[in-house]
């Protein structure tokens, strides 16, 4: 059980205001865009804001974040690698 992945699922649901989506039901490996949660380009920008707000990670170029937004697992790895040391 990856605590960070679970935390990210909750933050995705909260920041994107996804109704009737239980964070526990989001598959760690399911694509976030195009299928799976079926997110779009505005959601990608909202996730960029979420990462800065909650994890202090600044993404200046959306291309930089593209690999991170492939799945919750990829996002968790990205956050681990990029968040400022505490």
């Amino acid at each position, binding site marked *: 059980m990856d605590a960070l992945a679970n935390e990210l699922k909750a933050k995705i649901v909260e920041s994107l205001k996804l109704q009737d989506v239980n964070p526990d039901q989001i598959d760690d490996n399911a694509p976030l865009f195009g299928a799976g949660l079926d997110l779009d380009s505005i959601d990608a*920008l909202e996730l960029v804001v979420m990462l800065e707000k909650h994890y202090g990670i600044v993404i200046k170029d959306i291309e930089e974040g593209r690999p991170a937004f492939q799945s919750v697992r990829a996002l968790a790895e990205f956050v681990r690698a990029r968040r400022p040391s505490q």
Partner: protein
Amino acid sequence: MNSLFITAASLVSEADVRAARLGSRFGRLDLASQLALLAVEKLAADFDGLGRERVGICLTAAAGSLSTDAAYWNGRAGVGGPSPTLFAYTLPSAAIGEIAIRHRLMGPNLCFVGHESDALSEAAHLILRGEAAACLAVFCHVVTPALAAMIQWSPAARAGALLLQRLDTGLHRWRENDRDIAAMCSLLSAR
């Protein structure tokens, strides 16, 4: 079939929005778009039967998108900046887009900011000019408590929708002086 009839009417409030379940993406809409979308949903209109490419939308927003504009502006000081999602709703016509997307309506549309009286008569004239076979006349009035304090208006969160068609019968025959959409929605949706 030379008469225009209002064939469906609805009126919704913020309480209706909280209880609404219109898919997982409904939550990301701003309140004005949620209200307008829900008002149209409650008409239970058969858009397939009307021909989706021939259904117009006329929307009036008495306070424009000011409540959403203010919320977006207030978010600029936060870490990461204001919400990109909210930015998409800083136009009063955004609700028209949401209605058109959900119901795949491809007819003409118009958005009015100011008094609601223009929307119903303009909807009627779209049909009379042959530009639409049917038309939604929607009013949306949202003044959040935060905006109300800024502009000294009363807080409000309500929307209504009327479906206007050229038919032989309906809830109410449209007349040139029928302009107060909120009153008509209230009256007709109670039937």
